[in-house]
């Protein structure tokens, strides 16, 4: 079958490298933690309960908009770090 001709990753026999796995685990979940903290912080501050904080104006724009922008910026930064460190 044509499907079986395609390289089947599970058929190969790479050796499990515990140290490499742990290094990847630490990097990936540390970066994920940084992003999710930013993400949820921004999400919670913009709720009805905390809207007064979100409405604080900085240079003519409410804090909520800056936090939204920050999510995009942090997302792109952790993406780049992940790709560079995983090279």
């Amino acid at each position, binding site marked *: *079958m044509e499907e079986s001709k395609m390289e089947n*990753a599970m058929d190969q026999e790479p050796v499990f490298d515990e140290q490499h796995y742990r290094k990847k685990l630490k990097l990936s*979940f540390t970066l994920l933690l940084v992003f999710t903290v930013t993400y949820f912080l921004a*999400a919670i501050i*913009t709720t*009805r309960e905390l809207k007064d904080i*979100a409405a604080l104006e900085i240079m003519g*724009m*409410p804090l909520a908009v800056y936090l939204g922008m920050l999510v995009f910026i942090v997302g792109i930064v952790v993406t780049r770090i992940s790709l560079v460190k995983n*090279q």
Partner: protein
Amino acid sequence: MGFDNPVAVSIVLFTIAISFLISYLSIRWTRTTTDFYVASGKIPWKLNGAAMFGDYCSAASFLGIAGAIALSGVDKWWIAIGFFGAWIVLLLVLAGPLKSAGKFTVGDVLVGRFGGRSLKLIAMVGTVVIGTLYLVPQIVGAGHLFNLLLGWDYMTTVFVTGAFMAMMVIIGGMRGTTYNQALQGLILIVAMFALVIVASSIYFDGNPLRIIAQAKETVSTTEAVKIGRDLLATAPTETVEDAFALAQTIREMAPETPTAMTPGVAVPGMWNQLSLVLGLLLGTAGLPHVLIRLYTVKDARAAQKSVEVTIIGLAIFYIAVLFAGLAAMMILYPTLMELLAAGEIGVATNMAVPFLGMELGGEVFLGIIAAGAMAAMLSTSVGLLISMTTSLAHDVYAGIIKPESSDRERVVFAKVGAAVFTVIAIVASIWLREQNVAVLVGMCFGIAASTFAPILILSIWWKGLTKEGAVSGLVVGLVFSLIFTFARFLEMSSVFGIPVLVNPALYSVPVAFLTIFVVSYYTSNQGDVEKFMAVAHRKA
């Protein structure tokens, strides 16, 4: 409008014709199952990144979010931020290992670790449920759009759109789908930027920040209807200057009313917000049409680089969506108020962007925006269809029903499956025609976040996961998320005393994870964990 917009209709038909041409030209590269499912893993990573962007920017992104911002203001931007955040999860914890460990489908990854056919079957069911639910809002959006452009009734529109989607998949397979999605992604980003640039140039002194500044002095249209509905009968509403004047009058009538830039007005309470953003964050990690694109490139590194291209594209696109949504609110102020006053919330939300295009650049601009919207719907829909049919043909037909089947039989089975899924989605689209497409997609994310996301993340990263834990977690996550999703559709306030939230994720995600941990603790079949981890986490 009927054929009052021949130029716009021609532009839309031209882009659809190009898509069909691309699909037709891809026939010669779609001879085998691997070609049909994943283009034999030969798609360049930049092209795949562009295709993922087109695939992901659905009707919800292009029409729903900007439309929701046009009605309710900056609070609705959170849906876009959530859609974006999901890709960071995908890149950091899934993209590379998933490509390394899989071949065609999510089921392959699970079977790679645990073996057996039951997981493939369960993965296929999950893929079909999520895919169908995600397909519905695409067709709903298309139905409204063609209604606007051609004056067709909704039913006719839904049938024709569904047929387009099915034909593109059946003809072009994954390679045709990839080129189409990349082209459609390009149309989307150009259309969204064109809206912001032209709106800024004509009405906001060429400065997009003026859109924000003016929005700070404008009451959202949703609030404006409550304050100044009576003004619609008397105030002039012909020009954009009239629209600005009406907004100013309403602001003066109720100076204490929050404006379009006031946060916390249209956002649900804390728990609803948490549930929504959690569902969006983990949702992409469980969306089959996104995951299957990781298998179309040559290796894990290429998959990760593809995702980075998509992330950058999405960041730029979603920031533009905020400006476009706010511009639409102010420029279309009376139009949106009239629609809201008439109870046409769905039309107001989903059609704000096409209306803005018409206002800014007449038929040509309307045509470009409509082509962008159509591109959004088609690219996402064909991605969903191909992921569902691949799962059905590869996981079930070739994996369980008829393992000895020929390549031709499998491709035929997949194509028949595409037609069947389209019919199901069309019927559901008729039932849910008044729903906001962004809300529908958001709920679909909740289901994906509660099913595939937990088991994929834990399969790849947790050695202690057992087969029983994975199966039970997936089933429990699916059941919980479906219960709360349908409770929401049926407008129930609670289920068994538990309040129904805007998204099921806050309940179903923790329950799914907890089920996996508890069942894994009491069972022992961890599968071929050493070999699986070695493959999934091998060095590039």
